[in-house]
């Protein structure tokens, strides 16, 4: 596939404003809709990225998200310099959360973020190192 077939989007995610979390995912959703991509695929990308964006704000004081739109798939790369995930296997379990109580009062921190991200994507990898950060890579086929 030629490079010119790709569309690349980059978002810097602020870590200090929870009310703005989700703006990047919302922009991506709009862009994908505009490109006429299948609504089911658009929704999968939007939900997975939104959960990831929320995680970045809650756990990692923000980060950066790269979205690459290919003719046959959409890649999302979410990179933060947060504390890292201590136990990835545990974090992948539905209902397991390390989010503080104040996050639960905002409607998140139910331990469904990473499981939802896996559920809505066709591929997902997590690279994480304590004290260094986490990179989550996700792919949705169109």
């Amino acid at each position, binding site marked *: 596939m030629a490079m010119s077939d790709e569309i690349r989007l980059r978002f810097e995610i602020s870590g200090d404003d*929870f*009310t*703005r*979390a*989700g703006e990047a*995912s*919302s922009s991506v*959703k709009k862009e994908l809709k505009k490109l006429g991509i299948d*609504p089911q695929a658009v*929704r999968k990308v*939007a*939900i997975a990225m*939104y*959960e990831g964006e*929320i995680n970045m704000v809650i756990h990692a004081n923000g980060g950066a998200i790269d979205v690459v739109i290919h003719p046959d798939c959409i890649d999302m790369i979410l990179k933060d310099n947060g504390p890292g995930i201590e136990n990835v296997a545990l974090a992948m379990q539905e209902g397991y959360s390390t989010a503080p109580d104040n996050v*639960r009062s*905002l*409607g*998140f*921190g*139910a*331990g*469904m*973020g990473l*499981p*939802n991200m896996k*559920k809505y994507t066709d591929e997902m990898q997590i690279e994480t190192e304590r004290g260094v950060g986490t990179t989550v890579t996700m792919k949705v086929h169109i």
Partner: protein
Amino acid sequence: MTVRDIQEILHATVISGEEHTDREVHTACGSDMMSDVLAFVKDQSVLLTGLVNPQVVRTADMMDMVCIVFVRGKQPDEAIVRLAESRDIVLMNTNLRMFTACGLLYDRGLRGGNDGNE
């Protein structure tokens, strides 16, 4: 069932999006935890919640939901209303509590969607 029907059944007040109240609603979801809402995709859905913050609208937006009902008389602020308007999502509130609001809609035939338990 339409958004207008939901408003009547719940004795709710439409806060914004009046022009979209003729839209069809096929399923509903009642939760204060947004990740639980995001776990099950439904079509043409309404969200009932006691949570009031912009993430409620963002969640509904990601899920292509058509309407949000705030229970227990909760009132969204101006920023939330503007966000919902920009996404063509109807906002309303009802003085009913979550259990009662969900029960009334269920009684009138609205279901939780394709989750295999009903």
